[in-house]
């Protein structure tokens, strides 16, 4: 009974979030386009499914994953865990936080795989590209990017470097890759940066950043706690372009191999023909 009540509250909040979008769509459809929505029944049911799905998803996250994830982030960054046995904190070394980096990467990867908006974009990309881009490979490369990004972001909080050096360096990598990678993937790669950080990733990552920044001496949670999300949106761009480059290199190599094999066959055939005709 309690669960049902909670579900209804979450559903109500989701509906409120969606209201502005819905009113914009309806307003433009009725006042500007002035045509009935095609397949209105199906679209309506689809919308209802999306709302119910999102509400269930959020409720489940709140019940199961968020409290657990936040608690783990707190425990992993707690001084008792990191400096087990040492009574006096003399200095911190970045390697003390190795479990934090591993946790950051693992949680970044796994939450990205479950991110609904990334699933949406990956499905669309697979459909539009006619299967040339595989939805699952795209999601895995984005997830690797996020994992690396959040681990790097946690390292930055631990050592306390200014954020913009990292971001600018990342931009430079993006610029260089843009010129060398297949043109087809560029817009999708740029998109994947913004897509990754929504419902699932943000709360968990924010908890991690806050936990780190508030337990490390000399870091302010208010200033250093921010910035992890920026890493999580930059690294997937690099990862997706790298994925495209790797795939291209691979097909290039197999094509070359096929060509070579063909050439050898043809040469043999020519040789045979020459031998037969005296």
């Amino acid at each position, binding site marked *: 009974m309690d669960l049902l009540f909670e579900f209804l509250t979450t559903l109500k909040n989701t509906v409120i979030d969606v209201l502005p979008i819905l009113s914009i769509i309806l307003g433009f459809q009725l006042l500007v386009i002035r045509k009935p929505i095609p397949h209105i029944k199906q679209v309506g049911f689809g919308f209802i499914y999306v709302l119910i799905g*999102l509400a269930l998803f959020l409720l489940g996250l709140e019940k199961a994953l968020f409290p657990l994830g936040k608690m783990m982030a707190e425990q992993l960054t707690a001084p008792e865990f990191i400096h087990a046995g040492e009574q006096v904190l003399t200095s911190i070394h970045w390697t003390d936080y190795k479990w934090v980096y591993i946790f950051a990467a693992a949680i970044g990867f796994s939450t990205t795989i479950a991110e609904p908006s990334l699933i949406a974009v990956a499905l669309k990309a697979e459909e539009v590209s006619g299967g040339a881009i595989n939805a699952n490979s795209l999601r895995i490369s984005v997830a690797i990017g996020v994992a690396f990004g959040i681990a790097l972001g946690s390292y930055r909080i631990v050592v306390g470097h200014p954020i913009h050096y990292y971001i600018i360096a990342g931009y430079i990598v993006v610029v260089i890759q843009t010129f060398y990678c297949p043109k087809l993937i560029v817009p999708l790669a*740029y998109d994947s940066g913004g897509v990754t950080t929504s419902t699932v990733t943000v709360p968990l990552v924010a908890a991690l950043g806050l936990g780190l920044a508030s337990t490390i001496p000399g870091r302010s949670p208010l200033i250093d706690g921010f910035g992890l999300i920026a890493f999580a949106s930059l690294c997937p761009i690099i990862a997706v372009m790298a994925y495209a480059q790797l795939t291209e290199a691979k097909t290039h190599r197999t094509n070359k191999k096929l060509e070579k094999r063909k050439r050898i066959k043809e040469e043999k055939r020519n040789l045979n023909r020459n031998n037969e005709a005296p």
Partner: protein
Amino acid sequence: MNHQFIVFLKALLGSCKDLLPIILVIAFFQFAVLQQPMPNIGDILVGLALVVLGLTFFIYGLEMGLFPIGESMAQAFAKKGSISWLLTFAFCLGFGTTVAEPSLIAVAKEAAIVAASGGIIADTLESQLSYANGLRFTVAFAVGFAIVIGVLRIIRGWPIQYLILGGYVVVVLMTLIAPSWIIGIAYDSGGVTTSTITVPLVTALGVGLASAIKGRNPMIDGFGLIAFASLTPMIFVMIYGMVIS
């Protein structure tokens, strides 16, 4: 009916697979690293079941409702041929979906507390509220602007990389002159703007437009709207920070 049920089961199985990594990560860290028993396991199992169900419904509804409506609207606008209405729609979609975005509201509130404790704004509830609202409207305006630019790009067929790289240059230059307390928030605000419902809609809009306009490739021209929406908020928030100080 039977067929639909099988489709549903397949989707359910897919959602389980999507969730498996999270379960593994949490179990590993809880038992192997932190070495602690799982607290209230019943709640967690119920929650996981809800997440799996929710994800299944979401994806199901996505293909039924969100994608078709985004594409049909894009095609209707393309047929109508009125660029100004299309751009108005683009702006409304960006602004409207962002201004009410819960994660943005949360971040803006947090940022207001930072600013108040840092002495940037007066430490009263009122000034915090106005700062947070200012931040929210700045980001929402930036996203509306971004979708407009992105739609214009699709119509005109501008290559995306020059626009995005140009945006990066602006971000870097602004970073040099913007007050340092705004930089972290500005960089983050790029990531938090695009919500779970906006992304599929905006993607469908872009792909629909690119397929409706002659000479555009949906793969090259259709994607990229979200990229703009994560870039412009950084620039606008830094401007906001400069204006305030």
